[in-house]
């Protein structure tokens, strides 16, 4: 019996349980819901929970354990010669057996393997039938037991709400655990990296060339992991992006919130926000194939040598992407400046521009700083634009016409492709990731704190 059919039957039983429970409860109360402890449908859920929950747990546990048990049984049935193979060879053999069992191509098709595949299929079949039987039995048992318990005094709602609470806690726990898991893996892999490369050499070294020797006899491929050029490259591109995004975003926000008519504002704002909705891969294409050639040609025309993967191209396009981010956040904080402050300035005869310069911007400054910091953290973490438009060479330069590389570009290049997972080269990606994570986390915390503090002041 197929597992999905089993699942379907359990679900159907659960639904039936719900209706049975409700009817039973109403019957027990002689059709008067007021005599019940809980609303009738709670009794339905009560039965459904007893019927479905243990069974679903059994299904989940079974599906995890069954392959492990079957693999063990199949290996046990193999001739001794195969059983004593080293672990990786045994794994390959097992893979072949599974492939044959599923009717797919395998690299080895000896009689031993085919026999094992048949055994594998038998066992799987048997397991599925046993699962179906156990699951249905459990579901039925739960159904009957819960039905028998139903009485007007049963506190059905309490159980249902407890289960519901459990589900909600489980969901939030999952989100938290995921975050913890990400941080933990970053930390652990980084520690392994710093076993190989000293922490200070990584943080303050000025030479980055992560090519380590594949063979011991290769020359000059020891690899060096000084991340300063990468940090500098990231900073350069971020700086260029901010030079574009901050003035443009800020002035747009000022215009939209102080000068524009509501009709203009409600048209222009969504159009500008389209910029934020365009996938980053599109910006990468735009930077690499439209902006970079234009900048290179313009540079050549005035006698400058511009790298085809210049920091300028990637930075400017990233800046364009971040404009709506800065403008809508600034717009929020500028709109949050109390109208009374504006009126105070107007009442003294200040022009709008003077009010903006002397009153509104100073009042909104913490919020604007927060918005800019958030934008910076976004620019630092941006990946696709720089992967497609910035270079790979770790140049330590402040010249925006040269190619530089960034933390995210290096993480992608270090991890994409076939790598051993314990080489310094691969582990370096985790160390870079950790730096990126810690830095942007700090930026975000600072920015949010500034924004919140500012909000409190005016609310």
């Amino acid at each position: 019996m197929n597992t999905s059919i089993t699942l379907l039957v359990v679900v159907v039983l659960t639904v039936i349980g719900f209706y049975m429970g409700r009817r039973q409860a109403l019957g027990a109360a002689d059709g008067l819901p007021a005599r019940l402890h809980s609303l009738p449908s709670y009794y339905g859920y009560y039965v459904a929970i007893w019927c479905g929950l243990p069974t679903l747990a059994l299904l989940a546990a079974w599906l995890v354990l069954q392959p492990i048990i079957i693999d063990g049984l199949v290996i046990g049935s193999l001739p001794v010669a195969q059983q004593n193979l080293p672990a990786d060879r045994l794994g390959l053999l097992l893979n072949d057996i599974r492939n044959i069992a599923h009717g797919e191509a395998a690299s080895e098709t000896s009689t031993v393997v085919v026999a094992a595949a048949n055994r594998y299929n038998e066992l799987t079949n048997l397991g599925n039938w046993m699962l179906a039987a156990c699951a249905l039995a459990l579901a039925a048992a739960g159904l009957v037991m819960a039905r028998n318990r139903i009485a007007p005094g049963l506190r059905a709602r309490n159980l249902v709400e407890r289960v519901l609470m459990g589900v909600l806690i489980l969901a939030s726990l999952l989100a938290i655990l995921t975050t913890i898991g990400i941080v933990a893996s970053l930390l652990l892999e980084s520690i392994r990296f710093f076993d190989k490369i000293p922490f200070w050499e990584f943080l303050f070294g000025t030479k980055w060339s992560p090519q380590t020797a594949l063979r011991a006899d290769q020359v000059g491929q020891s690899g060096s992991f000084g991340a300063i050029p990468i940090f500098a490259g990231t900073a350069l591109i971020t700086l260029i992006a901010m030079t574009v995004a901050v003035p443009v975003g800020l002035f747009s926000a000022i215009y939209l919130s102080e000068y524009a008519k509501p009709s203009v504002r409600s048209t222009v704002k969504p159009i500008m926000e389209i910029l934020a909705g365009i996938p980053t891969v599109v910006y990468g294409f735009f930077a690499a194939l439209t902006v970079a050639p234009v900048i290179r040609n313009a540079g050549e025309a005035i006698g400058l040598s511009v790298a085809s993967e210049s920091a300028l191209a990637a930075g400017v396009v990233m800046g364009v992407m971040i404009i709506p981010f800065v403008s809508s956040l600034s717009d929020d904080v500028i709109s949050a400046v109390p109208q009374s402050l504006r009126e105070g300035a107007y009442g003294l005869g200040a022009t709008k521009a003077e009010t903006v310069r002397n009153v509104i911007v100073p009042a909104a400054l913490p919020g604007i700083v927060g918005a800019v910091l958030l934008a910076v953290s976004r620019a630092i973490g941006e990946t696709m634009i720089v992967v497609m438009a910035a270079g790979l060479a770790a140049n330590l330069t402040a010249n925006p016409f040269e190619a530089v590389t960034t933390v995210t570009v290096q993480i992608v290049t270090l991890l994409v492709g076939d790598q051993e997972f314990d080489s310094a080269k691969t582990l370096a990606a985790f160390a870079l990731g950790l730096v990126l994570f810690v830095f942007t986390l700090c930026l975000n915390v600072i920015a949010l704190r500034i924004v919140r503090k500012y909000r409190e002041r005016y609310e």
Partner: protein
Amino acid sequence: MNNGTAPIAAADRQPSAIAETVKSGLRRRHASELRLKIYGLMAIGFALVALFILLLSVISKGYSAFQQTHINLEVYFDAAKIDPDGTRKIDDLRRGDYEGVARTAIRSAFPHAKGRRDRRALGKMLSTGAADKLRRMVLSNPKIIGTRQHVWLLASDEIDMLRKGYAKRNPDGSATKVSRKQVAWFDALAKKGAVERQFNWRFLTGGDSREPEQAGIWGAVVGSGLTMLVTLLLAFPVGVMAAIYLEEFAPKNVMHHVLPLSMPGILTGTIIGMAQALGETAPLLMVGMVAFIVDVPSGITDAATVLPVQVYIWADSPERAFEEKTAAAIMVLLAFLILMNAIAIVLRKKFERRW
């Protein structure tokens, strides 16, 4: 705060003097007002122009990918090449040397080209897709074996670039990636009216290919669609459970007010979130979804690529012809995003009107 006329001390301020001073500063102050306004307009203009140029560059680069150059040739369906054993069985017909048939067709259009290199160069003007078309023709109608037919055959990507004007013609008669003789042959064919740009169905319906002229976006579209479907299926039960919970447990005013009021938010949030996921690329690169996959996936367990990754792969390809394919893929991706956002807006409007 100096503004032309000498400011006056507080002590000897006279009404007329004050009025005069205030008035004399007005022009400068209004000019500065205008400046701020212009900066604001310029900033908005910059953002809108950037958006416009972005879309324009994608469309102007990409629209040509929806057409592909074909060459009309007289093809001799040579039985000796297609079915040397003369069995006329489908399996044998499938194995025929259709590339040879296509090569012969273009060579016979230029009988003067004799040398080995010239004959090779002529063959290179056709795509490998040309042979596929001939095979399909024979399989659907084996009777054409032995006949001569005029057939529109897919040109190679270099010829396509030449036809579309992307390959730069050099003074010596050659062009980018196209030799002098090939240019001459192409011009001769064009003069005869045997070169035509036809709608590129293959782009919309086919999977990826190493050959730009045969590459299609459908595999990535289906891949993206299936990915979205899985996301929805995972999110759907949660949504339904939440709805049931509200219906059954919550007080009736929650059911009648909270849910309908939050529903448009939930719906549009879901759609916009999914639209964002649709455009996400970097995480997929890291988990190694950057694979070259020709086949259109038929289920959620098949190897698949998604639209933004397809864009990335093509953008990374060296062939010039992939540039227009990349831009066209972006157009398809943006079309999907616009569609999803439009649905979100329509849903929000609909719910807002009702409540």
